């Protein structure tokens, strides 16, 4: 659980259209990195390359020096993508192919407890609200205890109140679950509220225009955070500038 994710010279093109990179960075073994950018900036492409759903055109993605194995990755998509014929428990167990019997039951219980849905185990996806379904998707991703947890705009389809609740769930998970977590988002407040590190991409092709480890930048980013804090607002403005201007100078850490 102490291995870092290394992205080296990663590029991805779809046909003749470059979508991402070249991009190099290292993601720490713990904490939540938010990747923010406009539509088409390559955020989701980066995440799909990390998950093995897309093959990089060039470069490599490794975990502790080795290619990333699917069983080490948990992925929460924009939509819950639950198997509609499986109930909540069975959906959470979907990623636990190598566990059986009591061990699998325990892993399912643990993941459902983490998202507060242990009593909902027998419900079918059609009986769940949007927020509950997305929490089941989060539990499914957490159940195999992945070393990398990828969250691809998991709150984008939710109403503001449910979204806030889900954000609290992710914050809870990020503080109790030891994994490299990457959150893709459009929402600057979300990134600044949840992440330990924020990376801004601008593209296409997606390139890094800002990369901040937040708690190093300001004590205002110690948890719990206050989005009304002056430093929070200042970083929000800077992030907006980075995304709009795309200044290469923003790659360096900004003063607190």
């Amino acid at each position, binding site marked *: 659980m102490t291995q870092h994710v290394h992205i080296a010279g990663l590029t991805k093109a779809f046909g003749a259209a470059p979508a991402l990179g070249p991009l190099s960075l290292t993601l720490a073994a713990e904490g939540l990195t938010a990747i923010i950018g406009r539509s088409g900036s390559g955020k989701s492409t980066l995440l799909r390359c990390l998950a093995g759903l897309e093959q990089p055109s060039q470069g490599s993605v490794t975990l502790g020096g080795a290619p990333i194995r*699917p*069983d080490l*990755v948990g992925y929460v998509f924009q939509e819950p993508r639950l198997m509609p014929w499986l109930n909540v428990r069975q959906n959470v167990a979907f990623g636990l192919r190598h566990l059986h019997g009591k061990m699998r039951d325990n892993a399912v219980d643990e993941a459902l407890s983490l998202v507060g849905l242990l*009593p*909902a185990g027998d*419900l079918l996806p*059609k009986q769940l609200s949007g927020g509950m379904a997305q929490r089941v998707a989060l539990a499914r991703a957490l159940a195999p205890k992945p070393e990398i947890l990828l969250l691809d705009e998991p709150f984008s389809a939710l109403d503001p109140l449910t979204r806030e*609740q889900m954000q609290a769930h992710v914050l809870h998970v990020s503080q109790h679950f030891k994994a490299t977590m990457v959150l893709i988002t459009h929402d600057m407040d979300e990134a600044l509220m949840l992440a330990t590190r924020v990376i801004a991409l601008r593209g296409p092709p997606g390139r890094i225009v800002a990369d901040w480890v937040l708690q190093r930048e300001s004590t205002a980013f110690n948890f719990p955070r206050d989005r009304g804090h002056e430093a929070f607002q200042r970083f929000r403005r800077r992030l907006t500038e980075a995304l709009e201007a795309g200044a290469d100078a923003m790659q360096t850490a900004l003063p607190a």
Partner: protein
Amino acid sequence: MADKVLAPSAAEFTAAGRDAMPVAAGTWRWPLGIILPAICIFAWQLVAGLGWVGPDLLPSPLTVPQTIVGMARDGTLWIDIGATAHRLAFGFLFGAAAATLAGALTGAFAYGRRLLDPMLQALRNVPSLAWVPLFIIWFGIYDVSKILLIAVGVFFPVYLNLMNGIAGVDRKLIEVGRVHGYGRLALLLRVQLPASLPAYLTGLRGGLGLGWMFVASAEMMGASNGLGFILTNGEEVGRPDQVIAAIFAFALLGKATDWVLAQGARRLIAWQDTITLESGRT
């Protein structure tokens, strides 16, 4: 904070459980479906009763139940229904099994589709009666050729629905399997087949319907028993009541077997979040 956030609220469960509410048991609905047949029988009685058409062409509707009862009493009805059901059951099983295998291969594997589908699509357009001489030459006039003809009829709806069902499974669900490390076979078994179950069951219902049509054709071409035999025999001896009785038997048995299949299907795909046509519920 965590405990407060993580506890699912009562409102959440209430909202979520909206679709879990059982349908009120014993709810009686006016059977609209009998209105049209009742009008048809009334018109039929009018035409036959007023003598506009002679009984040698169109017997009274009251004659048909009497004919059915008579056939039931002397036992021929049960023998004929048994013979037809036997042929249909085997034809349906063989046709559906072959279609399931072919549909799974062509739906899940591009090579399988390229290899098999062009030929099967061509064969699909061969009229059913075109097979009859060949089957009779190869297998004789007994049950084997009839069962094969029924199997051909059942095959295509099941095959097409399953192939399209598997090939059309939402890419997003397949990606979930891929991020969890599922290989081709595991994806087929755990994602594609369950997801294509509604299409498959639709194909089975269509196949069963065609099976009834093909069993009638097969028996009319040469059989010494079966409902199709009653049809041809009625024609030969000038008994329209017997022909109409056999048509009623086909309609009732076809509807009954479809109902059984539909009930089974409804249980199997109760997970679908769709409008229930039969109840009008969402």
